[in-house]
């Protein structure tokens, strides 16, 4: 039996590892930019899709189906991002006689549309954030709603998430411009510019519940995750359990999430996202009908393998655990490592990763999609992978995360590692006192200025640049090429013509 992963990077590696554990052969697909990527070199089979741009490779349904046919793959897993929430792709797979590892196309469609999913939730008695019901193509409907619900409001692309096509609007005057930009961004990322609006809750927390289900009607809520550390709606750090959820709230969240899953007869792994207001009330946000980037924190604390469960469910097998057999132990924290320079407004930093040195030892897990020598292409979401620390409690998890960061080396491209190093030392983070707007405020401060060197550090640097080959003179030449590259990136970014895979 062969499984094709219609994706790249760390999630393709993650899914192939589950396949190996289950004795299923692995089929990788790749664009020209990814020929020597780890997800290709570990696979049993590999098929070229096309040139680097996503539309000609990872987003091309016909080429993906050809690759499956060529290698006689019978299973297809979409990963996250790219076509993971495309009902069209799910249908195309089924139409080609393939087993789509994920929920039904209908469930994807229902939960994919923010407005339809909210209607379903209202019907199922799940509280929803006040918002427009129909996806709007023009601004008038949104203005009407905003006047009723009161500003600030939140504009969202109805066909996708991950920070794309999202704008906060504080006052009526800004609505027009914000709508135009949000709609354009949504069009570029999901091919659908329709937008809907929601009441903006003040400093809420983002809590999501992991659902595992099979085709025999078994549905289990496998713990919650805290994902409030976000930068412009993009998750940066996730935790399990949430420091803000006590057992009675947890029970309510679980039952709401299960109602959501029941409402669409959900039969795979998925995540129901809620906004938790400071007063303890919570509102349905959306259901992600796919595997989440942050699934490892749930796996470490609840001792489950969610990817294996998805594949079993797709094959018609029952879930390998009932809710009674599950028990959480300890606390886990995940950091998403992006090839971006947090100190330069998260400017992307594509290029060749000259060195990857991963931390290890007790409580540390790395799900990573690059290795020394890998290229970080400019064409896709610049996430390199995730660092996950697990401890007996939140305090030990943070101590282990901090220790792992001291061992972590990525050279050749800038990364968000320095951000995490500063974060684990921040008193508010260490006390779990944060919410979805916290990080944006934190980043505005002078926190990421690199410290000045001590005398000892200056001696180390002097030895490096003097004895080493890369003394300043040569420094310019080889540095030049990389700085030239960054200039090229800046130019590209400015032109906003960057055809990005959707960001998760």
């Amino acid at each position: 039996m062969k499984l094709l992963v219609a994706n790249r990077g760390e999630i393709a590696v993650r899914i192939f590892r589950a396949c190996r554990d289950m004795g299923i052969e692995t089929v990788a697909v790749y664009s020209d930019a990814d020929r020597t990527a780890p997800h290709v070199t570990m696979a049993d089979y590999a098929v070229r899709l096309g040139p680097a741009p996503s539309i000609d490779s990872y987003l091309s349904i016909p080429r993906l189906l050809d690759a499956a046919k060529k290698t006689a793959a019978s299973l297809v897993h979409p990963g996250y991002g790219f076509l993971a929430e495309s009902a069209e792709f799910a249908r195309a797979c089924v139409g080609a006689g393939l087993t789509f590892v994920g929920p039904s196309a209908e469930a994807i469609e229902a939960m994919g549309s923010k407005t339809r999913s909210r209607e379903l939730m209202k019907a199922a008695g799940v509280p929803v954030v006040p918002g427009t019901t129909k996806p709007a193509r023009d601004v008038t409907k949104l203005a009407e709603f905003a006047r009723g619900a009161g500003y600030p409001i939140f504009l969202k692309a109805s066909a996708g998430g991950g920070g794309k096509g999202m704008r906060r609007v504080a006052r009526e005057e800004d609505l027009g411009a914000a709508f135009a930009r949000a709609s354009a961004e949504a069009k570029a990322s999901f091919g659908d510019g329709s937008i809907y609006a929601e009441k903006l809750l003040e400093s809420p927390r983002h809590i999501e519940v992991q659902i595992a289900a099979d085709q025999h009607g078994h549905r289990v809520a496998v713990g919650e995750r805290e994902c409030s550390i976000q930068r412009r709606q993009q998750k940066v750090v996730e935790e399990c359990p949430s420091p803000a959820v006590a057992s009675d709230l947890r029970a309510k969240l679980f039952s709401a999430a299960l109602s959501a899953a029941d409402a669409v007869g959900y039969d795979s792994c998925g995540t129901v996202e809620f906004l938790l207001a400071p007063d303890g009330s919570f509102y349905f946000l959306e259901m992600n009908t796919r595997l989440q980037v942050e699934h490892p924190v749930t796996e470490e604390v609840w001792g489950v393998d969610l990817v294996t469960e998805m594949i079993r469910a797709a094959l018609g097998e029952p879930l390998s655990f009932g809710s009674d057999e599950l028990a959480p132990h300890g606390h886990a924290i995940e950091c998403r490592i992006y090839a971006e320079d947090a100190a330069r407004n998260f400017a992307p930093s594509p290029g060749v990763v000259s060195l990857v040195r991963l931390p290890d030892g007790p409580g540390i897990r790395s799900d990573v999609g690059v290795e020394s020598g890998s290229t970080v292409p400019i064409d896709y979401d610049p996430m390199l992978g995730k660092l996950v620390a697990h401890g007996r409690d939140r305090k030990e998890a943070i101590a282990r995360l901090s220790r792992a960061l001291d061992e972590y080396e990525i050279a050749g491209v800038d990364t968000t590692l320095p951000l995490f190093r500063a974060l684990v030392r921040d008193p508010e983070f260490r006390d779990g006192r944060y919410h979805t707007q916290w990080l944006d405020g934190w980043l505005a401060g002078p926190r990421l200025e690199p410290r000045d060197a001590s005398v000892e550090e200056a001696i180390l640097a002097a030895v490096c640049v003097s004895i080493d080959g890369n003394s300043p003179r040569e420094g310019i030449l080889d540095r030049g090429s990389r700085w030239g590259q960054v200039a090229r990136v800046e130019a590209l970014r400015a032109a906003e013509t960057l055809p990005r895979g959707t960001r998760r």
Partner: protein
Amino acid sequence: MTIRRRLVWRRKEGPAELTVESRDGRKVTVDGPAGPALADSAKLADGRWSVILPSGRQLTGRAASRPDGRVEAWIGARRIHLELADPLRDLAAESENADGGAMEIRAQIPGRVVEVFVVPGDVVAAGKTLLVLEAMKMQNEIRADSPARVAKVECVAGQTVETGALLVRLESEPVV
């Protein structure tokens, strides 16, 4: 292979000289603000360096200089910045000339003067860009290191200069 490098470490507390000397690339003497220290240095296969100082303190990390004279150093996920100017690399360098006070800024390698921002008599603050000199396709702003008064300007935009050519002469600004 004997290595001898003179580096200027520009700290908030003022510039400090670091002289790096080694005959074997292993026993490295670094003469810095806290006097000479013998650093037992070893390069690792992945390009990082490990130094053990006389106190027993051990540091392992990597550092590379950037064209703007800054050196980017990393120890694990910790990024450390230091201005480690290498006179050789700074396309121009100030040197105290005979009559003290006056500082002459001379071209260190052949280049082309792209633009001049000062005229004799200007009073400049530390960090003020005096001129832009282009060499090896790199444009480099030549700045005043400390407050001074422009005594002489010896070059014009577009002019090519040889190594050692005098560009600007500054006089330290008398404390008023």
